[in-house]
């Protein structure tokens, strides 16, 4: 059988991040978190920064975590994970998978220095960023991952800056493994997590995790939105192993960005007058640059 998702071979489903969490229906981050931890397996410690993931998964007395879970502040999940790793080393225990994780706010803005420090010191930690392109937990404020043209509560007329390219920044730290993934291709995502955990040293995986509430699309479209983000070229899928760009996902059929933008309420203002606003051309330009840069 040749169908793409015919067999679930090589795919893990252990529900280590279990049901009963308070995420919205169709939450991309909840889906991503489950996929990541199922791939990592039971021998894992999750160090989670403040954010949606922590808020919806950890209320007492019924958290969703079936593995050790450590909540830290917004800015220091990477630092805490570094400490956990150092403690295990000092105690002579392990090996154990340590996954530091946070949303795009804690990764790109507030916790950036601690991540940079973790990369630089070379801790054996995987950092997973769930990128939903704004501070969704606190009510959809702009972050440095918010894409150009997107409306948030702090950029009501559309964001004026481009998205920070953290995967490349991480790669420039000289860490052994950087990858991007989305929740729609669960096989690819889980393979990347497994591959990352098999490598010694700091690793970074950037996962696009749509937020139906903040992005203004219906929960059922989470996977489709991810797919369009990839196929328009706005979210390139690649791996950087030892500084070399590899495994770039080629776009099978290139899709104009309008199709991606029109699904989402946060870009609705760009199509208000019946014709696409000039920002749409700019966003298309960003996609084209990505396509050229990564040879998608």
């Amino acid at each position, binding site marked *: 059988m040749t169908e*793409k998702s015919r067999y679930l071979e090589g795919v893990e489903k252990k529900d280590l991040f279990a*049901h009963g969490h308070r995420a919205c229906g*169709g939450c991309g981050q909840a*889906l991503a978190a489950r996929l990541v931890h199922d791939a990592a397996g039971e021998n894992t410690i999750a160090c989670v920064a403040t954010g949606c993931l922590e808020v919806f998964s950890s*209320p007492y*007395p019924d958290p969703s975590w079936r593995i*050790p879970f450590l909540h830290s502040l917004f800015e220091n999940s990477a630092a805490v994970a570094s400490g956990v790793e150092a403690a295990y080393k000092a105690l002579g225990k392990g090996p154990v998978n340590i996954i530091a994780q946070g949303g795009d706010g804690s990764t790109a803005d507030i916790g950036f220095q601690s991540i940079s420090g973790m990369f630089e010191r070379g801790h054996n930690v995987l950092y997973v960023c769930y990128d939903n392109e704004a501070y969704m937990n606190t009510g959809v404020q702009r972050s440095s991952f918010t894409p150009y043209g997107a409306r948030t509560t702090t950029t009501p007329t559309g964001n004026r800056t481009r998205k920070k390219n953290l995967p490349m920044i991480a790669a420039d730290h000289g860490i052994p493994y950087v990858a991007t993934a989305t929740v729609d291709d669960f096989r690819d995502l889980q393979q990347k997590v497994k591959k990352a955990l098999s490598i010694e040293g700091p690793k970074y995986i950037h996962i696009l995790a749509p937020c139906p509430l903040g992005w203004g699309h219906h929960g*059922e479209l989470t996977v489709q939105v991810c797919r369009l983000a990839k196929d328009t070229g706005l979210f390139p899928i690649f791996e950087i192993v030892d500084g070399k760009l590899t495994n770039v996902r080629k776009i099978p059929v290139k899709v104009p960005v309008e199709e991606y933008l029109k699904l989402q309420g946060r870009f609705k203002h760009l199509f208000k007058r019946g014709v696409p606003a000039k920002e749409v051309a700019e966003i298309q330009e960003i996609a084209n640059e990505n396509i050229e840069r990564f040879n998608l």
Partner: protein
Amino acid sequence: MDKLPLGLALDLRNVVPYKTGSWRTLMPVNIMHTPPCTQECPAGNDIRGFLRTLAEKKDYEEAWHVLTRTNPMPAICGRVCPHPCEEGCNRRDFDSPLAINSAERAVGDYGLEENLEHKKLIAARKEKVAVIGSGPAGLSCAFHLAKRGFKVKIYEAYGEPGGMMRYGIPSYRLPNYILRQELENILKLGIDLECNVKVGVNIPMDQLMQTYDAVFLGIGAQKGMSVDIPGEDSKNVYTGVEFLREVNSGKYMNVGKDVVVIGGGNTAMDCARVAKRLGANVSVVYRRTRVEMPAITAEIDEAMEERVMFRYHTNPVKIISDDGKVVGILCVQMELKEPDASGRARPVPLPGSESVIPADTVILATGQSADYDGIEVQKRDGKWVATSETLMTNVDGVFAGGDVVLGLETVSAAIGQGTRAASAIEDYIDGSVESRLSRPPVIYSKDLNTYYYQKKRRFEKEALPIHMRLKHFKEIYPPLDPEAIIDEAGRCFSCGLCFNCGNCFMYCPDNAVKISPKTGLYEFDLDFCKGCGLCAKECPCHYIQMTLEK
């Protein structure tokens, strides 16, 4: 208290999760849809079922049993059916439809090779049913009744069973041994067969109605209709049915050098191709054009490949004979005018366009009718039997089906009618009202999420080269490769029924899709499902749908 593992301050591993199912306004449900192939199939075959069995289990035997639940003659239908299922296939809008007909033939052939036997559903019952005619309708009705335990006896007017399949379909399309084996297999269910008995002539209809609890009338359309033209009583003028019957009975026909076939239906095509194999130059004379021809497209194509001449817009006026034997046929050119009652363009003769086509044999394949000798039933249009919705005629306890009801139709249509009549007869005998089984809704391409399917080439059966075909009456399509058929079955979308792709299972953000420990299928954990609809959206075959919460 147990010592906590390193890293745990609170042991919350065995908590009772918070039931998020109460948030839901929409609820996912599994709804099995009717795939368009089954919808289009006149016999109502479970096409998706047998293709998925082939693809998943690679099990021809089980596929044969799935197929023969509705159709007792897969090897025959796999050869002669014009496969409307392929017209319906949702894959048509994606790349190209599945080669369902070839798959059916491969499964049927496997059944014959391995001598697979039909299974009876229930033990014997005492009620008896008579079936008149052993064509596809009669056999199908007898088959389904016998499976349900009835005592069935078939009366056949000719020397061998099979009806039009035996005497109407030439053996290059349907080899005789295939027909015989498949019929024997049906008769093994304990069906009695009496040949050379013409009901109404050799045995009165009343006697049957008294001896049996019900009678099924599947006499077909065995009588060729003549066109009213002068000279049709000459020697070497045959009706199509007559001609095919003679050839299929194994009689050598000396047709001469030139043969003219009049008509554009399936019988005309069969006659033309048979005459071609007998060594003649064949022209088909038809008064409209190819577009209006009622024959199956593939057959017209094959006839053209075999160098049968087609003369369109031509109407016979007179058969010219010399010393009582045909020498030619006088034809007139026609012009097409506004459509008539049948929706086809109305041909009008062009004055002064008469011409003579030389002919040693003329075959009139311009229509057939049923032979009602000694059988009194109410008819519609004076030609075909009028039946109620349950296929009962105006005579209580006498049911009818097949060509005698439908007019000139296909083998699969007759099988479908036989199946329906069998259910109606069972209901009639049991005294229960027919429960009208409503089918689940049909699913069309627009409902599918085709992202998860891959484009793949369609399996094409290969015909013998034309010069080889015309030398003999052997089948023009050699046996099919079973492995290639399994590959082809793998192309099936499984429209409207889960094929365990695992999308719902993997994509649910709330882990609310579980594998049922009882059935091994996916099921929803409604305690936790928030009703986001992601599973329904990403279900490739539209098996999952969202409905309003109760």
